[in-house]
């Protein structure tokens, strides 16, 4: 009896709300999104205006966070960088989940040979790490956010597809799909109007989690100099630009950008995992 009560209590608590961590995460994400939208407009100074005589100067007057290694206003660069960083990650997550859900639904629908072939191709793709693909993409398309983003998206597709394919297969096997097939519904209508909406909660959760991964990986790619190019403001680029400051004892440039990334990634991942848990729970 005690086990049963405990089960009910934990389940109710899980469903009842976000909790302190959840609300904090939501607040962090809200601030980050707001910054991405209005940051580049509201920034107090030109993020690219360099004055080497102010290099690595700390907080000074209205320059709340001081200056970076090239004498640019740090706060302005963080605010302007939010847009590049978040849109880059959003692009990766969007491409990965759109392609992933498409592959998942199509393979689940046709099954058999199509499914086996897709599974084999995905197994091969699993072998390529995102960073490696990004290096190759940079070599072919030239370094930049687009080539890095595309490479990462391709690298994430197998992960997204693996999760979504399981859900789509389960949904495909439900008798309501068979009933609607007997009604004469087209495969198109069944997939778009019934299969896809019924796994949408999981798709959104996967997208959120992939967004977090993408921020970290894009920062790493920027650090290698293959992603967003300096002087454009971007949190990953700022970590990279702050390298010399780190060695000279002025860690603020790298550190502030890193804190932003870690905060947003932690918040997004936490929310994504909660969404995923909820999506899976409601499926049972």
């Amino acid at each position, binding site marked *: 009896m005690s086990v049963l009560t405990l089960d009910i209590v934990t389940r109710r608590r899980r469903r009842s709300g976000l909790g302190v961590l959840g609300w904090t995460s939501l607040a962090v994400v809200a601030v980050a999104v707001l910054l991405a939208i209005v940051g580049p407009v509201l920034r107090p100074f030109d993020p690219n205006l360099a004055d080497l005589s102010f290099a690595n100067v700390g907080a000074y007057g209205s320059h709340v966070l001081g200056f970076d290694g090239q004498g640019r206003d740090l706060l302005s660069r963080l605010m302007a960088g939010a847009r590049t960083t978040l849109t880059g990650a959003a692009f990766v997550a969007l491409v990965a989940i759109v392609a992933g859900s498409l592959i998942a639904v199509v393979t689940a629908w046709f099954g058999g040979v199509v499914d086996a072939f897709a599974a084999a191709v995905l197994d091969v793709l699993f072998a390529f790490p995102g960073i490696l693909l990004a290096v190759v993409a940079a070599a072919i398309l030239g370094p930049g956010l687009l080539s890095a983003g595309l490479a990462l998206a391709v690298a994430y597709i197998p992960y997204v597809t693996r999760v979504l394919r399981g859900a789509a297969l389960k949904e495909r096997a439900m*008798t309501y799909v*068979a*009933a609607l097939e*007997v009604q*004469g*519904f*087209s495969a198109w209508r069944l997939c778009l109007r019934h299969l896809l909406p019924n796994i949408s909660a999981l798709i959104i959760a996967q997208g959120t989690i992939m967004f977090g991964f993408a921020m970290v990986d894009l920062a790493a790619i920027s650090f290698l100099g293959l992603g967003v190019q300096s002087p454009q403001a971007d949190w990953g680029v700022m970590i990279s630009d702050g390298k010399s400051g780190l060695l000279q004892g002025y860690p603020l440039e790298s550190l502030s950008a890193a804190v932003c990334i870690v905060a947003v990634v932690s918040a997004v991942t936490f929310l994504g995992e909660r969404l995923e848990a909820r999506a899976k729970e409601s499926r049972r």
Partner: protein
Amino acid sequence: MPEDPILAVRGLRKQFGAHVAVDDLSFDLHRGRSLAVVGESGSGKTTVARMIVGLERPAAGTIVACGRDRSRPARGGAERKRRGREVQIVFQDPYASLDPRQSGAVLVDEVLRVHHDHDAATRRRITGELADLVGLDQRQINALPRDLSGGQRQRLAIARALATDPRVLILDESVAALDVSIQAQVLNVLADIRDERGISYILISHDLAVVRQLTDDAVVMRKGAVVEHGPTGRLLDDPQHPYTRMLRASVPGPGWKPARTLRPAAPPSS
């Protein structure tokens, strides 16, 4: 019978690998009549239903419904939809057979939109009539499946099947998952619908009481093959084949003792 059968099945066969699920099955179903397909689990009953509605492809044999062959996959959307207006099915599990995101009204409306060019008002009227027919009230037809009981869901599944106004309705253990009093309600609904619409039923069941209540003829299947075929009343009162007698004897009634039931020669394969 003077008229052609509404559904004619000849020499139907299906195998999954080495396992023969259905072997040389033939029967006729006439307008307004009901046929039971009886047998224990794994006897191939459900495979028969899935072949008739086109979810499985027969290895051999023909299925002719309303004068048109349907033993091959439909070529194109028009034929697929026409088949949907000829034969419909209600599945066993009322919990998996409805899209969890659609209320009954939305579901029936979508089926009507796929099949006809009715305007919104006409679709609403037909949806209301179908809800009345299966005994769902205004609140229930507008509720999501998770807010409905098993019996109400099964009524909704029946309404969905009837939305295309089919000539034949297959009931694949459709009342087996419901408790006895709800089962009786749903069976009454089905009997009323048959009287009102002149629809033919194929009732797939292992429940002989349900079979006796709803059907005129019966086919007894064992391991994919027909062992006995005839009018339901005679078949149940005076079974000729030992397997039919065994099925009869397995029904718990007054004085029933487990030890008295005959065991089939080999354990049933599923």
